[in-house]
């Protein structure tokens, strides 16, 4: 469907229908789908069939639940950030503490799920792309535990920014391959991983780290990450006896946001707010905010909002946070935006860095720079809510990996 056909009347959509998406072909409205080369269609079909089977297999689900509790450390707490809430002077802000998961971010929820699936499918070799390195570390971690070969593709620019995570992956036994093509960041790592998959389809499973890619990835990754929202919903009711007024999460590809949002989609009174990386500012063009300032197109297997030129070339993104530095976004977010079920804001590098410091000093929790974008926006909106309203922020990852970046911004050499 050409992009001019991608126009819908947001007032007429029935939000409950959103819970039944994607359709059989992986579509979320006009977004998503399966835009892959023929060379990849057989392994994609194989994956889709395996996922359809195992998602309904109680034995598989029990194995995943057991890994979530024994290996990942779930459930993660829902923490009341009292001091920070008070200092802002608005809603009561709660953090869903995905930073306390094993490996320090939400990414591991998905890699546990996909690695278990890979094992059931008889695959012995795992490949993955990574930007900030969190998904790479989470992948290398589950591979070490399950005895699977692991190859991680990472843009050479990102390797420079994230040396600690590169070393962590190597310690875990993964081979890290630097990608020198294109902009040498996450999107190029994704291209290279797809090439590897095409070449080694028989024994290789590709663990995509976000809710993007050809169907079934966006739905599958969302399902694995939905544990975040299911827990948060239960915990909110248990701790406060009511549902939150709003959920806030950062959006690069959008997996932590989708995982938090999805179980709340049917709760129409709960606002869903994604926060993209505004980089130097949306007006400068140097950002990574396709939902705010991009337009629909097709990349990496799905139709979604993209950062592109008028002639359809993908453009380089900019963000202080490597994990948000991606020119596309998960197709379900694109559809939630068009339907009006979710809103998408943006926070600049500077706003994110400020929020990083503030939450670190006020709550004793050092958030990842990705997460800091969600915190920065929360700070902007919290005062618009009553003091007894609850906002849940996805504290998607911890900030240890970012201390070099933070230091460099302040002219400090570590």
């Amino acid at each position, binding site marked *: *469907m050409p992009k001019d056909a991608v126009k819908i009347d947001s007032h007429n959509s029935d939000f409950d229908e959103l819970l039944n998406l994607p359709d059989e072909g992986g579509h979320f409205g006009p977004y998503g789908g399966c835009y892959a080369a023929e060379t990849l269609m057989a392994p994609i079909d194989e994956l889709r069939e395996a996922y359809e089977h195992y998602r309904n297999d109680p034995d598989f689900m029990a194995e995943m639940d057991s890994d979530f509790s024994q290996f990942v450390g779930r459930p993660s707490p829902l923490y009341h950030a009292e001091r920070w809430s008070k200092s802002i002077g608005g809603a009561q802000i709660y953090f869903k503490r995905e930073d306390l998961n094993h490996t320090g971010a939400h990414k591991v929820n998905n890699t546990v799920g996909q690695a278990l699936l890979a094992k059931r499918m008889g695959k012995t070799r795992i490949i993955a792309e990574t930007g900030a390195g969190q998904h790479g570390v989470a992948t290398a971690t589950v591979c070490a535990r399950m005895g699977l070969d692991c190859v991680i593709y990472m843009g050479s620019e990102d390797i420079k920014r994230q040396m600690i995570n590169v070393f962590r992956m190597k310690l875990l036994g993964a081979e890290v391959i630097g990608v020198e*093509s294109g902009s040498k960041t996450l999107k190029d790592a994704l291209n290279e991983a797809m090439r590897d998959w095409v070449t080694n389809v028989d024994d290789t499973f590709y663990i995509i780290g976000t809710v993007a890619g050809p169907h079934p990835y966006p739905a599958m990754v969302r399902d694995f990450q939905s544990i975040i929202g299911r827990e948060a919903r239960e915990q909110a009711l248990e701790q406060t006896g009511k549902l939150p007024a709003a959920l806030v999460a950062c959006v690069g590809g959008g997996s932590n946001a989708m995982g938090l949002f999805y179980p709340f989609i049917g709760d129409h009174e709960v606002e869903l707010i994604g926060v993209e990386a505004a980089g130097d500012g949306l007006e400068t063009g140097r950002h990574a905010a396709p939902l705010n300032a991009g337009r629909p197109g097709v990349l990496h297997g799905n139709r979604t909002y993209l950062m*592109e030129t008028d002639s359809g070339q993908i453009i380089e993104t900019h963000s202080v946070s490597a994990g948000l530095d991606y020119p596309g976004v998960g197709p379900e977010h694109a559809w939630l935006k068009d339907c009006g079920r979710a809103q998408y804001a943006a926070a600049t590098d500077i706003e994110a860095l400020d929020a990083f410091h503030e939450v670190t000093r006020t709550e004793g929790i050092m958030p990842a720079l990705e997460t800091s974008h969600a915190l920065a926006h929360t700070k902007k909106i919290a005062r618009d809510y009553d003091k007894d309203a609850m906002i849940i922020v996805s504290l998607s990852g911890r900030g240890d990996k970012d201390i070099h970046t933070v230091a460099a911004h302040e002219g400090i050499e570590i």
Partner: protein
Amino acid sequence: MSRITACFAKLAETNRQALIPFVTAGDPEPGITVELMHAMVKAGADIVELGVPFSDPMADGPVIQRASERALEHNVSLHDVLAMVKSFRQTNNDTPVVLMGYLNPIEAMGYEAFAENAANAGVDGALTVDLPPEEAQGLVAELKARNVDPIFLLAPTSNAGRIASVDALAGGFIYYVSLKGVTGAANLDIDSVKSKLAEIREISKLPLGVGFGVREPADAANLASIADAVIVGSTLVKIVEANAAQPDKIPGIISETLSKFRYAMDNAA
């Protein structure tokens, strides 16, 4: 009858197979492409395949990715590529031209506008690498309405069901990817190509071209004995790359190489 269909019909009369060279439009600079197209026709090309540069060519290897990057340094757009075809058509009204690229530049132009502009420029076929039949109905309808053949890929991993769904939409010819991998990868296995082509022929009546991994004239000769067309891509693009500093020399050197492929194919046992 489309130019592509006419071309294959004519070749079949003399029991010859089509030689289809691939180069990326605008590589290493836009000024050379039309001259290069004419030179390739003179050297024995039956159909010319032009790559449309894209920033993220996921199904291509490093050689063709770098070709895209060189062209994009000159901001070569889909619009520019169509202008090149139009210019080629001023003196050549017979040789079919196929565009090969990725969907996003077409999305940016709009399906209808692309089909219209392509037909007006004299494009005969469009191969969109990341558009499998599942998602292709919209674009295929626009192309077919304007007599532009939608070219589709099939791979060693394509089963009978996939072959049938490609056959239902495809026009012109089917492009069989000879190996599991990206463009420019190694190791052409003639026996496995042969058995897969036989499987495809049971389902589709379209001519079958084979590409990926065609490096030497001998590879082309071997394929000519089992396929209807041989596509030579990365081998030529490497020559363009090696001579990028002297673009004027490229048409001559490419012609020389291509004639060897032509000779090998026409004199295959």
